[in-house]
């Protein structure tokens, strides 16, 4: 997947917000794990959900956790039937394949890495449904984070109403041999276009969504990352869950850092790794992701600052040895536009 195609990041970004865009995310991990009690029990050591109780045909945002409650990876986990057999279908980050698969295979030796034979496409934006519905059967009542098996080219494909842009959209896991054909058919719609990693990043940042290696790492827990809504609170009492004590303590006590959204007050770009300061030149935190926001026409960022900092006071970002005032902005920067009735994202 390139950073951008011909028309550039900003144009791709706007096309997704206003119409639709297609991302080839085949580099991501996709694995099928048989839905059997012994596998689920082993996986529950890492995944803070009640895996036996996952609703069929629904997806969940979750994590693999290390012993300290830090995030080995963030992932989407779904319960689906394929050819009358029940599976967990997990989509995970390309950069974490090695770490994740070591865990998946140790829990379920016959887990099937289906990214070797299936491409993964995300079509995102308000028009996604119109682009897709003439090609693939999408039920009218399909909500955000619903997932089902559909057919294309006489092959079974996995269709989920999801994505990582803050817009309505779908992800399609489709056998390699049918993938090119499907993309070409989708691209016949003149309002859609191929989009690259650059717009994928600016879209997810505007939507306030975390990215592994930036907001999330082995040293940050989901609670510190402001994602405690994604944890099953009953599981925090379970000794079998990695880091359960750390996490339940963090829920009760004050955290040392907090995640914030920032907007630049000048034209300079806020970028990953820049340092944040208070009025008196004391370091109070760092930016973990920054970009130009095409929707706000300003630079935006996500970062962490120390909890005791009173956010009524001014914050400065060091940009090329100059201190520039930045303003706190509630996340997300751009309102999410999901089709839902009670999704966990609300």
């Amino acid at each position, binding site marked *: 997947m390139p950073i951008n195609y011909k028309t550039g990041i900003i144009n791709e970004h706007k096309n997704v917000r206003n119409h639709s865009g297609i991302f080839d995310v085949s580099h991501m991990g996709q694995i099928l794990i048989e839905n059997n009690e012994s596998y689920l029990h082993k996986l529950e050591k890492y995944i803070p959900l009640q895996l036996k109780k996952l609703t069929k045909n629904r997806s969940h945002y979750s994590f693999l956790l290390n012993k300290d409650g830090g995030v080995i990876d963030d992932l989407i986990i779904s319960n689906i039937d394929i050819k009358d057999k029940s599976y967990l279908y997990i989509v995970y980050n390309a950069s974490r394949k090695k770490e994740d698969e070591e865990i998946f295979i140790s829990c379920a030796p016959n887990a099937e890495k289906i990214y070797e034979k299936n491409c993964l496409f995300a079509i995102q934006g308000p028009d996604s449904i119109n682009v897709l519905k003439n090609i693939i059967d999408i039920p009218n009542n399909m909500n955000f984070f619903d997932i089902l098996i559909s057919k294309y080219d006489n092959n079974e494909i996995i269709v989920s109403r999801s994505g990582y842009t803050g817009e309505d959209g779908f992800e399609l896991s489709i056998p390699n041999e049918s993938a090119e054909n499907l993309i070409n058919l989708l691209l016949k719609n003149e309002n859609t276009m191929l989009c690259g990693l*650059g717009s994928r990043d600016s879209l997810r940042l505007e939507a306030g969504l975390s990215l592994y290696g930036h907001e999330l790492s082995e040293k940050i827990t989901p609670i510190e990352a402001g994602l405690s809504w994604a944890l099953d609170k009953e599981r925090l009492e379970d000794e079998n869950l990695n880091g359960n004590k750390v996490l339940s303590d963090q829920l009760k006590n004050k955290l040392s850092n907090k995640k914030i959204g920032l907007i630049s007050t000048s*034209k300079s770009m806020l970028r990953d790794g820049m340092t944040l300061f208070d009025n008196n030149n004391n370091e109070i935190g760092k930016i973990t992701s920054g970009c130009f926001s095409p929707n706000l026409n300003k630079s935006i960022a996500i970062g962490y600052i120390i909890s005791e900092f009173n956010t009524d006071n001014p914050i400065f970002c060091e940009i*090329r040895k100059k201190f520039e005032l930045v303003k706190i902005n509630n996340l997300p920067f751009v309102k999410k536009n999901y089709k839902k009735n009670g999704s966990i994202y609300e």
Partner: protein
Amino acid sequence: MGAYMSEKKYTKDHEWVSIENEIATIGISNHAQESLGDIVFIELPSVGNSVKAKDEICVVESVKAASDIYAPIDGEIIEVNNNLENDAAIINKDAENEGWIFKMKISDSSQYSELMSEDEYKQFLEQ
């Protein structure tokens, strides 16, 4: 030095320079704007500053990254392209004409002769 030289020359930092009556006009090459992608902001240099070749004098910010602009030769900055202040994307549209960034009064024209010609720059890009 000659009173009139209009051949456009290029630096290894992907800037172009053209000279007319001892005044050099400088911008980034079309190749540079293509690899930077959408340019959203430029921090223009200060008029009146005397600079040396290879000094970092201003910054171009694209959606992808910040990129330093260097002085290609010694001289004094005498004018900047204020149109870029409101619309830095002019550089994407026309990097080697309307997208010029600043002008310098130059003191040593031999530095200019050492820069690459258009053909040499093309070869440099292919390496």
